């Protein structure tokens, strides 16, 4: 397993006091919290920060960790000292309320894993994302996963094979992970950021308790042409100056296939035209908005330049009149 340099992760000196560690944790937690940060690796970063704080904020765990010495580098291959278990007993430490068993690194599990074993598995009633609050019938923990889908998949719906790593505890209370394959139905019209709740697909319950749920957070990958705003789809559509000036029927791609759009005469750049119901499907389907962008061709020949000069002569047009010049 890899050594974790908790001081480095929090960016504090090895002799930092309790308050400095707390401040560093808070600052990094605000920055990397997956509900706040938009960085794709936010969840990973936050997990590391939280684990580091879990150890360094607890005097016993910190003292034990410090005994490993300062000669280790982050990511270095590491085995716990052979007498570790006899010297330190974290079996009764507990105090990790609300932390999902799946959330800490192998390094942490090996050194401090005992902390998790305090209390029966079902003692913590609900999954970590629910904050571990409550006090109800023992049920397996909820699991959370993220799936990325293409915009086309979101539009048409479909199936997605996913692998989820579900933690469970064996008879000795050790956390084991087993991988489960699921074929998840993606409903047509799912939107970015929405969750799919799969009842009973989370961690197994303790004893006869029911399994928790699996929540899949859907993220729609950016598309080269289309953009999303909720269930509405936006598309930039380049048009020629004469199409905009005279009006035209043009072919426009939509997620459901190309359609013909009427560009009204006198259309302007930035003008938004609505294709009703061509957005993401649903009981109230979204719309597609086509944003016109007039592209001006560069004159390539003397004849083409002459056309522009004729326009300059024959068309009285001052686009800057509103600026008073």
């Amino acid at each position, binding site marked *: 397993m890899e050594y974790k340099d908790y001081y480095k992760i929090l960016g504090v000196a090895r002799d930092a006091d309790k308050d400095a560690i707390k401040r560093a944790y808070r600052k990094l937690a605000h920055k990397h919290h997956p509900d706040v940060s938009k960085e794709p690796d936010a969840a990973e970063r936050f997990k590391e920060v939280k684990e580091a704080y879990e150890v360094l904020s607890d005097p016993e765990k910190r003292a034990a960790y410090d005994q490993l010495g300062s000669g280790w580098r982050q990511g270095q291959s590491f085995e716990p000292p052979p007498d570790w278990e006899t010297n330190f007993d974290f079996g009764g430490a507990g105090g990790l309320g609300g932390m999902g068993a799946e959330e800490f690194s192998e390094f942490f599990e090996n050194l401090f894993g005992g902390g998790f074993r305090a209390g029966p598995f079902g003692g913590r009633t609900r999954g970590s994302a*629910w904050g571990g609050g409550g006090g109800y019938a023992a049920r397996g923990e909820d699991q959370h996963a993220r799936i990325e889908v293409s915009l086309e998949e979101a539009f048409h719906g479909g199936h997605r094979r996913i692998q989820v790593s579900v933690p469970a505890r064996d008879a000795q209370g050790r956390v084991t992970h087993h991988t489960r394959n699921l*074929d998840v*139905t993606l409903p047509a019209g799912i939107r970015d950021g*929405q*969750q799919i709740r799969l009842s009973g697909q989370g961690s197994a319950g303790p004893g006869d308790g029911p399994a928790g749920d699996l929540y899949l957070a859907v993220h729609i990958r950016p598309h080269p042409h289309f953009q999303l705003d909720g269930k509405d789809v936006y598309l*930039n559509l380049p048009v020629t100056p004469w199409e905009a000036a005279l009006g035209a029927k043009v072919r426009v791609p939509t997620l459901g296939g190309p359609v013909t759009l009427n560009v009204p005469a006198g259309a302007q750049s*930035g003008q938004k035209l609505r294709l009703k119901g061509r957005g993401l499907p649903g*009981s109230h389907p979204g719309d597609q908005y086509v944003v016109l962008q007039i592209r001006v061709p560069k004159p390539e020949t003397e004849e083409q330049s002459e056309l522009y000069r004729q326009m300059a002569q024959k068309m009285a047009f001052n686009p800057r009149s509103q600026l008073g010049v």
Partner: protein
Amino acid sequence: MPKPPRPVTGIVLDERTVYTLGELGRASGLGADEILYMVEVGILEPVPEQPRWCFTGASVSRLQTALRLQRDLGINLEGAALALDLLEEVNRLRRRADLLERQLFG
């Protein structure tokens, strides 16, 4: 060849999915008094004009986020409610900025 898994269908937590108070309690492990408090501080908003309290799927996501913020960042639920509203606003503005940027710069 391993047997292909059977297709599973979940519930999309959107505005069409409606949870009763009891269902939300079972899904979250929270008691009725705790859910009442979530409504008081503005984390949850019951679907309007219903004889009995019910909540949309989107409010389930809000509740989960609020509890994570409370647990991980040590903020109280009033603060979490404010953070949620601000996060929604930030996300709306980000989307808007992305759209406009793409319209301007292609």
